[in-house]
């Protein structure tokens, strides 16, 4: 887990650099900066590569990217955009943030596992069981007080996600089953359980007689819907879910850095044998970490359902790729809270900007959607190793090395060697 080592190393450096102006502090500052710069350069490279493919197939990458950008609604931030264009931009930006809301949490679900040295490919399955439970609770109990109902649905979805991820954690801790395989299997089981629940004749299929031939769930009752604070409440305006999401990102940061579990998780991620020798119960840590990962994914799903989706089609379950986006988000965000939020915004924007309704220029919208996958693939590939981007940064890095103390020299060696 070279990424983890690097991450822990850079963190250690940061904390050591508290006494300012020392050479070590200077290095720490540069290293901290490269923690931001490397992902940015990675993203830029991926976009350029995507642009090359667009160009190679006879389209103009600049107008394509401009169209995607406008589709994301980020042009709302420009004061000169006005009138109907501004209204469209606002709607698009709400979409972007709606997309980013669950991505932050699914990203955290992957990131926390990474911190503990595990690869949670199961964000997808944990998210799907969260979906199932959230839509089930949200569409039942119609007499419940609104706030209670919302909290109930979110907590239940979190518990479902946690239980689902917990299976993988328990199997790893007790039998040594590799979590990569078990979470992949759990993803597929979740998909088919979901399809089973909401298909025609399934146990949770809608009671609405008009939808008797549509494989869909019941709709979430009015009381369980999250309040919308920006845009239309009926046409997918932005709901308060995003604040829950951001708050949980802060919780994640505190959990990692300020709690015993976070410390133990990082220790286990760094070296399970050493952690065990130091008295950490490795198996228990794995289980707890997976439970929390699953809870994050479950909450993500509930915010989706209670915020704007309101019902669930079997097709949604079968085509959803969010767990895999979560991997990209976590990796690009370097498994930190802030990084994950930033990466989730990027992917949320990319998803909105490339959806068909937002592309109305020279290029076929379907092509642009696949461009998202390619860019995402490039980003994941590039973050799997930092060597490429680090080499680009080499010029700046050399200056840093001149100031480095012995400990930091070792750190650089291990970073460049192991990544």
């Amino acid at each position: 887990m070279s990424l983890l080592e690097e991450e822990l190393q850079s963190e250690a450096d940061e904390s050591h650099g508290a006494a300012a102006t020392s050479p070590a502090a200077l290095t720490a500052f540069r290293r901290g900066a490269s923690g931001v710069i490397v992902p940015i350069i990675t993203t830029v490279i991926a976009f350029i590569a995507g642009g090359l493919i667009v160009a190679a197939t006879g389209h103009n990458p600049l107008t394509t990217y401009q169209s995607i950008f406008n589709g994301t609604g980020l042009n709302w931030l420009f004061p000169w955009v006005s009138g109907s264009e501004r209204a469209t931009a606002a709607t698009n930006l709400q979409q972007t943030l709606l997309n980013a809301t669950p991505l932050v949490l699914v990203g955290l679900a992957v990131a926390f596992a990474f911190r503990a040295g595990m690869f949670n490919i199961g964000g997808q399955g944990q998210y799907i069981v969260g979906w199932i439970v959230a839509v089930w609770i949200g569409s039942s109990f119609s007499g419940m007080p609104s706030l209670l109902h919302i909290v109930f649905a979110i907590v239940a979805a979190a518990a479902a996600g946690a239980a689902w991820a917990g299976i993988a954690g328990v199997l790893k801790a007790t039998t040594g089953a590799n979590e990569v395989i078990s979470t992949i299997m759990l993803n597929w089981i979740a998909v088919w359980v979901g399809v089973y629940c909401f298909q025609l004749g399934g146990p949770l299929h809608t009671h609405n007689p008009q939808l008797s031939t549509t494989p869909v769930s019941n709709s979430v009752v009015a009381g369980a819907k999250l309040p919308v604070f920006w845009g239309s409440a009926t046409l997918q305006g932005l709901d308060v879910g995003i604040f829950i999401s951001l708050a949980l990102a802060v919780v994640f940061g505190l959990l990692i850095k300020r709690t015993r579990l976070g410390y133990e998780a990082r220790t286990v991620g760094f070296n399970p044998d050493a952690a065990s020798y130091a008295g950490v119960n490795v198996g228990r840590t794995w289980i707890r970490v997976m439970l929390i990962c699953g809870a994050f994914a479950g909450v993500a799903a509930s915010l989706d359902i209670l915020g704007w989706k309101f019902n669930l089609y079997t097709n949604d379950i079968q085509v959803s790729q969010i767990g895999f986006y979560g991997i990209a988000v976590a990796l690009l965000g370097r498994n930190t809270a802030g990084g994950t939020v930033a990466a989730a915004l990027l992917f949320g924007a990319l998803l909105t900007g490339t959806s068909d309704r937002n592309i109305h220029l020279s290029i076929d919208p379907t092509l642009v959607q696949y461009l998202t996958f390619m860019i995402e693939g490039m980003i994941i590939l590039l973050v799997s190793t930092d060597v490429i981007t680090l080499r680009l940064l080499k010029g700046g890095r050399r200056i840093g090395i001149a100031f480095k103390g012995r400990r930091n020299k070792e750190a650089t060696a291990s970073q460049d060697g192991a990544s």
Partner: protein
Amino acid sequence: MSVGTIAVTPSRSVSPKQVGIGGIVVAAIAWVITIPPIESRGMVPSIVLAVIAVAAGAWSIAGGERKIGSEAIVVALFAVAGAAASVNSATATLESVFTWSALVAATLRYATPLVFAALGGVVSESSGVINIGLEGMMLMGCFWGIYGADLLGSWVWGLVVAMVAGGLLALVHAFFSINLRANQIVSGTGINFLALGITGYFLEYHYGPNGTPLNISQVPNVKIPGIQHVGFFGAAFGSANLMTWIGIALVPALTFYLFRTRAGLRLRAVGEKPRAADTVGLSVVRIRYWAVIASGMLAALGGAYLSVGFVGSFSNNMTNGRGFIALAAMIFGKWRPWGALWACLLFGFGNAMSDRVSSVNPTLGTLFEALPYVLTLVAVAGLVGRSRPPAADGIPYVRE
């Protein structure tokens, strides 16, 4: 453990492990007797057998074989549930689900793409490179295979183009895993997304919204003259696809290559002890490169079977997770070709069953879709602890 414990342990002619395995077999029989051709209509024999299996499992656990023992108990529980399901179904229903010849034929159909990809996984991981990008490499073969067959007018060329495409994507994985020493699981995940993007993009670019044209040259089925019309064998094996037979033939071939030839032993040496292999003059980098590329080509053939071999068209994300199943099959099969084949056949059987069940009861059929994954989960939990991946699997080699 005290001396006393050893003293009271009687010397056994059978080990707890054998008893546990026996328990698993008995548990399976508890279910098998309720389906055609035996079709026991009462629960009693099944329950008796299941109880025996549970007892064997418990004894096995007491004897120290915790995993095998619990496996036997779990299988016994599944078997009782299965037996209850069959006993409570009408005979006609049972016979329509368990039309064995059709089940076998469908099992082979479903297993074929998995076999190629799982063998690809075996090659790559034997050399020490984890290949979670099998899914993406399959998808590349799936699309570029049909593109090649369409463009060049023959399924043979389709397969060639598929292998080239899968090999190229594998080359990317090799470059990242071997040269850049990337986290192989992460780069494999990237590979999968890249393939999803590339195939979707070029499907749209070349064929537009109408999709791939009809009447593209397809891999033929092999009509075996002797048994083609001979009852069970005819229906089960009489007209299987050429690629099914190639896939099955590859299993002994690959076993021979990996365990009996010089090149295969070298490949495994690199996966087990790269430093030692390097010391005696083998090029770890070159051997791993070829292994990863070969694995991409095999996975691509598996993908091409779906498009060029079976359906005759390509649709977006057509492999739909089969690469991951192949990966699981490889692990289930303990990183060995034969093991991978049996695991693929088991998964194929699960798919085939779910098809048959769907035709009788669509709602239940959906749940059966999940069965292979549940089985894998149980198996991975029970078996993988004892099987061992190649020692250097997933560890980038740094020359000193």
